[in-house]
């Protein structure tokens, strides 16, 4: 059974003159214990999609979906309060820029204690206080912070970026979520720290079988850690499949361009040679092209591309393109979890 099953989710920005379709009919499904990467360049609506799943978008955004199932429960039929109670119990999110998301006026200890589920505490109120404290320390140990007393008493600005990110993860883990949405957890972080955070997340995935939706703008950064990848461009669904499929046998011209444009993925290229790249830049929301939004930049665009393509499924490898790249052959399904 799918953990999360979203079909044709659209997010519209209500404006004074016109409504802008920021996310256009994106489908996303996740299995239990899966690490799925959600990749897209800036303005592709990946963060919006994550926020829509958690339900933190304000009234300016209008979200519409054909299907939104969470562990078999149809969330669209529930009332808002029921949906919120269900989602806040099972889903946790790590936001971008940990420094900015923690409260600068409160110590880490207080913020952690606040996140701990009150129903897990027993006894009288003086006992509960103690339990809360020890639970906070346990959480810090879980994310690999050893000097817990120093960390609990400090304010966010006194910690480094990587430590703040660990605290954010600890807060997210406080309610033992089933799905963790990590929105660019390593943006503006050093490589050595990036590795630490990713290793922490993957160990949580393996030990607790927690599913992770890993959002990133850079394909090459996350390929090592994900089982499956969904690629988005400018609010439209591009391609989804296992990491191996996306990286080795990408069908969409955009995914192929992303893979080819990364210098670290192309070791065979001689140094200082030209990299393959798409012309032009990412369209802004006010001037979106009709049909397939990659159209003006796509090397394979033809007349049919003025209509948005429908999603085709090749053995679990979904692609949304009128003219996919390689001819499709029937191949044995790639083994999940290659890395």
């Amino acid at each position: 059974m799918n953990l999360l099953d979203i079909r044709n989710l659209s997010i519209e920005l209500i404006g004074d003159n016109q409504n802008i379709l920021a996310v256009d009919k994106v489908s996303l499904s996740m299995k239990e214990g899966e690490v799925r990467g959600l990749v897209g360049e800036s303005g592709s609506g990946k963060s919006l999609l994550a926020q829509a799943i958690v339900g933190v978008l304000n009234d300016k955004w209008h979200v519409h979906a054909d299907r939104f199932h969470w562990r078999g429960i149809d969330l669209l039929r529930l009332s808002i309060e029921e949906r919120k109670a269900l989602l806040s119990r099972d889903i946790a999110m790590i936001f971008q820029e940990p420094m900015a998301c923690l409260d600068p006026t409160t110590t880490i200890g207080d913020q952690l204690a606040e996140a701990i589920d009150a129903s897990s505490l027993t006894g009288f109120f003086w006992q509960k206080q103690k339990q809360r404290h020890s639970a906070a320390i346990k959480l810090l140990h879980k994310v690999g912070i050893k000097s817990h007393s120093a960390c609990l008493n400090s304010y966010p600005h006194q910690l480094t970026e990587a430590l703040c990110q660990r605290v954010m993860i600890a807060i997210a883990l406080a309610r033992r979520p089933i799905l963790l949405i990590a929105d660019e957890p390593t943006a503006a972080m050093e490589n050595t720290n990036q590795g630490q955070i990713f290793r922490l997340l993957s160990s949580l995935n393996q030990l607790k079988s927690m599913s992770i939706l890993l959002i990133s703008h850079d394909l090459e950064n996350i390929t090592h850690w994900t089982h499956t990848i969904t690629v988005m461009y400018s609010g439209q669904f591009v391609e989804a499949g296992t990491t191996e499929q996306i990286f080795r046998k990408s069908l969409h011209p955009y995914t192929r361009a992303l893979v080819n444009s990364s210098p670290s993925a192309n070791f065979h290229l001689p140094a200082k040679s030209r990299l393959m790249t798409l012309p032009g830049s990412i369209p802004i929301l006010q001037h979106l092209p009709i049909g397939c939004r990659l159209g003006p930049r796509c090397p394979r665009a033809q007349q049919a591309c003025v209509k948005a393509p429908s999603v085709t499924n090749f053995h679990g490898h979904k692609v949304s393109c009128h003219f996919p790249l390689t001819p499709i052959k029937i191949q044995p399904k790639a083994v999940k979890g290659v890395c």
Partner: protein
Amino acid sequence: MAELLRVEELSKSYQQKGFWLQKQITTVLEPISFSIQAHKTLAIIGETGSGKSTLAKLLVGAEPASSGNIHLNGQVLRDGSYKQRCQHIRMIFQDSGTTLNPSLTILQLLDEPLKLNTPFNEKKRKELIRTTLQKVGLLGDHMNFYPHMFSGGQKQRISLARAIILQPQVIILDEALAALDPSLRSQMINLLLDLQQQMGLAYILISHNLGIIRHFSDDIMVLSQGKVVESGKTLDVMNKPQHKVTQKLLMSQNFQLKSKKI
């Protein structure tokens, strides 16, 4: 080929205020020496606090060096010689959006270094701005726009135009490619490589991304806590890292690359 920029025993240390015997000296950058030739790229990597940004600041002259000297084309650059220095050594910053003055048009932005450093009249300057914008892949008419009208990649191109408009010999890229989206980043790399061939520029590239460094640079220098721990040809260092710090840095990205080799 003659060397373009030669740095000898350059170092930087800060003195903390205090009484006579309690004066503390923090050394940010131990004395280092290196040289670059035209058409070449030197990459500098290291963790935060290893002194790579300090080195960049010393080279452009944003901060005075504690000791050592910088030779450009055989001439010594002194602390006061900003005119000579800013003509020949230019810098591109990480966040291009915030380094452009939002209240000036692109014409005014690019006009400023020309007014201060060249004897050209207004017509000639405008002509030069137009050709420079075309060189970096923008249109000449973009000069009447304000910075907020451009996207992130285009802003980075404008700061590149500001860097090359004085026909410099050395350009310092301080994490200039880190904040860009992948498809724009490869466009920018292509553009930088083209300009290097056309104008014979030397680049000093400060970056975290080893993939870009491997593709882009000829020589590499690894800094750790103000000291050069390893330097040499990029391919040699990447294939056979000798020092622990280099190995750690390579390791942290190597496992990202492993999955692609399967």
